[in-house]
């Protein structure tokens, strides 16, 4: 009994100072295996789900590789399993494949096997997330021209097909047809050893890898739900990397690194419901939010107030747009003007938050709620779990809905704004609440364009959104925190949100 008393009474101050007192790496295993602690157990280790972050961190570019690789810094495309590519005509792309690459099971990597892998991922009878997320409206017809030349035909012009191919990993030809393989085989620097459900996933270095031999001999993935526990595990040396810890657990600058995680947070405004259908009300909403007060408190000090729904590294981001200043007086003025014109500004607006959508999501909404109230809005706050949130967020929308500001976060790490705009702002977009002819025209034109033209069209689109429509209360380009044991030499980057290349890790 007594020890518990002690724990209750004494542990508090101790716990408070615990992390400050921590010295890194108590009993670090001096082997060359990297232990990664994820936030959740992967449901599955099938490469066709590698767009989900905790699966991607295990599989993508470690076990299975992509034809092309997207550079997270600027969205540019670099070779991986394909060494070169060219557009033959509007509907055809041709990829030259790397020679001398072998799968872990000994099969050769060639055009024929690449076709098998692409067809597996895009099999319409499977719910592979890579297909549903990136190839939903696109039909690919791959064919082997010769051993190392792959031709991909499409029904509609796909100017950014090489970027798209950066999202799809190539599995071995003997992988079972149906989704849900327990034994992923690829060409990557690490091969899959075992998955003990509930316990760990183990990878080991693949000696037949085509590229440079990585330093780490293997990788072990474990998972803990609690951010504080993940952070503690790295601190005690039980793990080397915790890719995703909460802001308040990132207390040690020697171990904790922030990185832009390609997410952008916002409140989606439902433009179809009064009083949100009035642009002055929407502007007032944006003026009423004190973003600077939230930065460094509820949000990390490293977040950047946003103007575009895509991060600056994405092609099409418009850097010239102005961040909404905090101006409650202006907000009140706009509201009064709207009211004078008969806009029912007193209608109750619901702030619909989603629990855990990002760290401190609830507090962010509570703060927003308080700020909007301060500015004279009649708002109420409701936090819901994912399923309900998605129901409300996506079409078809309920007929009897009221005016809603919905907490949302968008992740585009695929290099191009096309992965964002149609879905969020097109007339037919599954999560769009606006229908603007100009926007739809820009989407159509930009989708078919390439290069600078494409980028300028996207920028024009974002300007129209930001200045003429105001469909969102823009918040921040977000950061994530990764805790890294000092024995590793590794810096997280924009892509750490979706992959974690063990081969890039060096030891100090």
């Amino acid at each position, binding site marked *: 009994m007594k020890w518990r008393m002690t724990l209750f009474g004494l542990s508090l101050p101790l716990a408070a100072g615990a992390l400050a007192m921590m010295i890194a790496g108590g009993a670090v295993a001096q082997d060359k295996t990297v232990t990664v602690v994820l936030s959740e157990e992967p449901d599955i280790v099938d490469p066709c789900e590698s767009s989900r972050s905790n699966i991607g961190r295990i599989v993508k570019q470690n076990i299975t590789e992509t034809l092309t690789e997207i550079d997270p810094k600027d969205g540019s495309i670099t070779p991986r399993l394909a060494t070169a590519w060219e557009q033959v005509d509007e509907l055809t792309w041709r990829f030259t494949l790397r020679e001398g690459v072998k799968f872990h099971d000994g099969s050769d990597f060639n055009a024929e096997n690449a076709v098998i892998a692409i067809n597996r991922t895009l099999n319409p009878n499977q719910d592979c997330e890579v297909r549903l997320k990136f190839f939903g409206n696109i039909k690919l017809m791959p064919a082997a021209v010769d051993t190392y030349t792959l031709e991909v035909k499409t029904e509609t012009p796909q100017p950014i097909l090489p970027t798209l191919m950066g999202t799809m990993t190539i599995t071995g030809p003997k992988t079972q047809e149906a989704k849900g393989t327990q034994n992923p085989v690829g060409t990557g620097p690490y091969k899959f050893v075992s998955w003990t459900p509930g316990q760990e996933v183990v990878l080991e270095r693949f000696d037949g890898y085509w590229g440079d031999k990585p330093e780490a001999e293997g990788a072990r993935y474990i998972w803990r739900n609690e951010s504080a526990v993940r952070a503690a595990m790295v601190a005690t040396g039980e793990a080397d990397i915790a890719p995703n810890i909460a802001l308040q*657990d990132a207390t040690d600058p020697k171990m904790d690194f922030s990185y832009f995680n390609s997410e952008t947070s916002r409140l989606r405004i439902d433009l179809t419901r009064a009083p949100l259908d009035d642009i002055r009300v929407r502007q007032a909403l944006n003026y009423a939010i004190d973003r600077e007060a939230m930065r460094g408190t509820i949000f990390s000090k490293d977040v950047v107030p946003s103007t575009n729904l895509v991060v600056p590294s994405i092609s099409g981001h418009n850097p010239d747009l102005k961040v909404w200043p905090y101006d409650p007086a202006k907000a009140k003025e706009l509201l009064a003007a709207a009211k004078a014109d008969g806009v029912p500004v007193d209608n109750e607006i619901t702030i619909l938050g989603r629990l855990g959508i990002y760290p401190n999501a*609830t*507090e962010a909404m509570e*703060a927003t*709620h308080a700020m909007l109230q301060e500015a004279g809005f009649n708002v109420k706050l409701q936090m819901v779990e994912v399923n309900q949130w998605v129901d409300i967020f996506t079409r078809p929308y309920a007929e009897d809905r009221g005016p809603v500001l919905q907490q949302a976060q968008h992740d585009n790490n695929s290099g191009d704004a096309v992965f964002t705009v149609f879905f969020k702002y097109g007339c037919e977009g599954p999560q769009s609440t606006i229908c603007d002819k100009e926007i739809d025209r820009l989407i159509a034109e930009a989708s078919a364009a390439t290069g600078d033209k494409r980028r300028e069209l996207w920028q024009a689109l974002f300007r129209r959104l930001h200045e003429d429509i105001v469909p969102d209360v823009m918040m921040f380009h977000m950061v994530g925190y990764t805790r890294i044991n000092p024995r590793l030499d590794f810096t997280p980057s924009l892509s750490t949100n979706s992959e974690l290349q063990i081969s890039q890790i060096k030891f100090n």
Partner: protein
Amino acid sequence: MGAERNTAAVPTAAPRSGARVVLGLLWSDKFAFVAALFLIFVVSCAVFGPLLLGGTATSMNLRLRNFPPFTLDHGWLFVLGADSLGRSMLARLMVASQNTIAVAAAAVAFAMTVGGVLGLMAGFLGGWFGNIVMRLADIIMSFPSLLIAVVVLYMFEPRVANLVLVLGITRMPIYMRTSRAEVLEIRERPFVAAARVMGASSFRVVFRHVAPTVLPTLTTIAALDFAFVMLAESALSFLGIGIQPPEITWGLMVAQGRNYLNVAWWLAFFPGLAIMLTTLSLNLLSSWLRIAADPTQRWRLEIPRGRDG
């Protein structure tokens, strides 16, 4: 008649005024006395807190985010520190007591009433009805309460009333079982038989004779259940299907504070302490009540201090 005097061990003390007796008995159990004071304080917070401090509890000041406790630098309201949005912990605790107590009391009362009545009827009527009630208790007990919560709160709004319903349903089986077991014993007692000989209906027997006898046992369980309900409410809040901000309960405060355990321990500690002290007080008081209400045990409170025992 004279010969009968003093034959029973029950002395017939001169009647003192009721309130004085109760206070005297309470005073003789110092733990219970303190518990009673604390509960009075909590209840007054629940009644008056939102009126007095409702605004303070929700007024945000991000500069005071996670302001540490035990200093008066920002006035007495911040003596217990501030939460992650810089709101006064003290004010929030006092305001939250209303929802907390209301939810817990309503859920426990619901479980006790519905579960108790079902158990009474099951015990008294027996047969197929009794069987159904007992199977229902089995089912609820092995039914994950979270699923009930998700069902109710998905289908209806996450309102306080629905939360009470969910928590109430999940706590019902213990009352069903206990009251049934007690009824099986009580209905064999002669005073029940006497009532039936008089021609009393089953309804009368159950509610006039059996129910009042079962009640003290159920009340004791209810005191313990208070803690479970408050903690369960906390767990539901954490999973996103309980009370949601801007409403506050202690459970929600604990759930929210858990993210800050290593930087601002007071966020979860004080509401947790409040839950703990409240249940502790309820239990101390209920065990005192059990003794004080039982004439054969009451002497325990009457022994002068310093004596053995």
